């Protein structure tokens, strides 16, 4: 089997509208295809969520993008620079946390950052203090990393990302180990980074956090990206769910059958959930209410359910079926 990585990128280096761009990116581990022909487009200046169940290939894709491991096929670019051909120029403006952030335990947080800053351009050394300050680690900067909690190491990892004044940050599970207050601070920091015009790619299992933080997402499963786009646009394609609290829950199903409405009805705890296809209008919901009332059913509550990213994610991934 011959695989090649095409290093040609159509856009001029550094001028692409995409912060991350991959075409047909593939990474295999023996017979296991961890990244399977991924086509990913991450626009600049946004927070982008990269979602997927365990083992979906999220971290592997990040590792390939950052040059931590090689790709077997496909093209990729970061900030318009073809990778791995111009990896040094691309990564000079990229900050990343991959997996659990680990450092030299016998050194302090500041000393670890000094090592990393020395590997970057000279100006990086001058950003150590501001980076520590930004992640709230300035007061603990001179404590040895062995005494850091998981959350503190996460913060130090983010500080390490900021040393290069990055245009693109790739954060793999940055909320791991953070307490609720820490997660809130991290979310605010990500939003502030985006507000400064940087791009943040966030890989996370915490769908609620991603929904609160990100503008767009991609869902990956078994190495394939199955959906990607702005969150609002993706959710607008979700099913419409209406919860009805009424006097005759068991009669709702028969009533809807008579209306010729494509709906799925479930009754739980005397509350009826009516799931209708994407594009169902508000008028259709009003029609259901009218028919119920005309049929002698007392309606106590009729409430459209706001679709969350989590429910949409579960809906999308549940359609994929069992692994082959």
């Amino acid at each position, binding site marked *: 089997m011959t695989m090649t990585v095409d290093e040609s990128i159509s856009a001029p280096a550094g001028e692409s509208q995409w912060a991350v761009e991959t075409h047909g990116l593939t990474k295999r581990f023996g017979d296991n295809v961890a990244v399977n022909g991924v086509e990913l487009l991450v626009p600049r200046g946004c927070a982008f969520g990269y979602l997927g169940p365990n083992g979906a290939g999220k971290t592997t894709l990040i590792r390939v993008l950052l040059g931590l*491991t090689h790709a077997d096929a496909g093209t990729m670019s970061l900030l318009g620079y073809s990778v791995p051909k111009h990896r040094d120029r691309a990564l000079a403006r990229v900050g990343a946390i*991959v997996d659990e952030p680990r450092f030299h335990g016998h050194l302090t947080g500041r000393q670890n950052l000094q090592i*990393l800053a020395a590997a970057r351009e000279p100006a990086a050394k001058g950003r150590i203090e501001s980076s520590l300050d930004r992640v709230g680690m300035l007061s603990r900067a001179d404590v040895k990393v062995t005494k850091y909690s998981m959350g503190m190491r996460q913060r130090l990892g983010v500080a390490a990302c900021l040393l290069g004044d990055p245009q693109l940050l790739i954060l793999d599970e940055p909320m791991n180990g953070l307490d609720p207050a820490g997660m809130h601070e991290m979310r605010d920091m990500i939003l502030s980074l985006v507000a400064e015009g940087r791009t943040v790619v966030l890989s996370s299992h915490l769908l609620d956090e991603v929904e609160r933080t990100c503008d767009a997402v991609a869902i990956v499963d078994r190495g394939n990206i199955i959906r990607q786009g702005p969150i609002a646009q993706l959710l607008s394609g979700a099913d419409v769910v209406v919860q009805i609290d009424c006097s005759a829950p068991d009669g709702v199903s028969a009533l809807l059958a008579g209306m010729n409405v494509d709906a799925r009805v479930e009754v739980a705890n005397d509350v009826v959930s009516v799931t209708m296809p994407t594009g169902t209008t508000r008028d259709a919901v009003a029609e259901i209410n009218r028919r119920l009332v005309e049929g002698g059913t007392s309606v106590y509550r009729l409430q459209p359910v706001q679709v969350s990213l989590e429910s949409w994610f579960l809906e999308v991934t549940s359609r994929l079926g069992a692994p082959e």
Partner: protein
Amino acid sequence: MPTWGMITTRFMELRRRRGLLIAMLAVVVGLPVIFLVVRLVAHAVDPKVYAAAGGYDIFTNLTAGVMYIFGFIMAATLGCTAGSVDLTEGMFRHLVVTGRSRVALYFARIPAGLAIITSIVAVGFTIVCVVCCVAAPRSLSYDGVTVPAGMSSSAFNTYAADHAGAVICNFNYRSNVNINVPCEYDRATHEGKIGVPNKKNAPPGFTMPSKQKLQNFAVTIAKQNYSTYSKEFLSPSNGLMIRTGLWLELEAAIGFLVGLGLGSLLGQRTVAVIIMLVYEVILTPLLARAHISHLINAQRGLVGLATAHLEPAALPAVFGGGNGPQSGNGLIPETRLVAVLVIVAWIVVWTALGARRMATRDA
């Protein structure tokens, strides 16, 4: 190429490994210091029983017998550490993400590690030099006889004539010609001297040789001993100390560079250190002396054998004494040129292997 900042921060990272640094100081500096301090104290307590702490012999034996082997081991340990800890401690990934060339990251470790190990070896060696010079014996003990140091051949002969009894009864002498005089132990000087047999114990027909005959015979013995005597000194010369110091630093540098390459290749420290220990302490001493005709050229490729052949001539043979069939010091013979080429090859090959593994390894 690595920047100055990369080298200094790498130096800082290695220097702050307190346990490793203490171990290196204890072995490379501590062992010679303890040995010398014990000798200094013992000599101060009873100078007649315990010889001076320093001196030429102490210097040569301490450097070739202790500092050579332990300097290499600690340098290799430092190298294995420098070559593997970024990976095992999770920093390699952070460093790769900076976009800096992985080869540059590897090369930054070389000057940083060398600065540490050569400094430690220099400290230990300087202490040995100072003690061996300052606390050197004031007179030379040659074959158990206290003799002035640094005499010319004629002065040595004159000394022998003036101390015929001590020379005849103590100095080594190999010849069919001999002189028949009784020798006895002198409690005052702890040297042998010509005794005066009483008439009852004297062999039949024994007559004491004339003074002139004894002096002539002592001069004959002195002439045979001069080449050996001329190689014994109260303290090491400046030239010998410089050559020995450079030789020890070379050995330490080789140990570090090979350890660095091996540590990077294996990606872990423990196994790499064990391999280096087995190589230096067991394999090299065995293979440097065992004459295996089918493997002789492979044996010449041992870096330990190569550095042994670059050893200053005044020092005792490394890897223990004993004579073998190949040469005077028992080591498999090798020219200096071949020795230098072997050392260069080891440094280049291990550096290339380590750098390549680092450049291609998944982070």
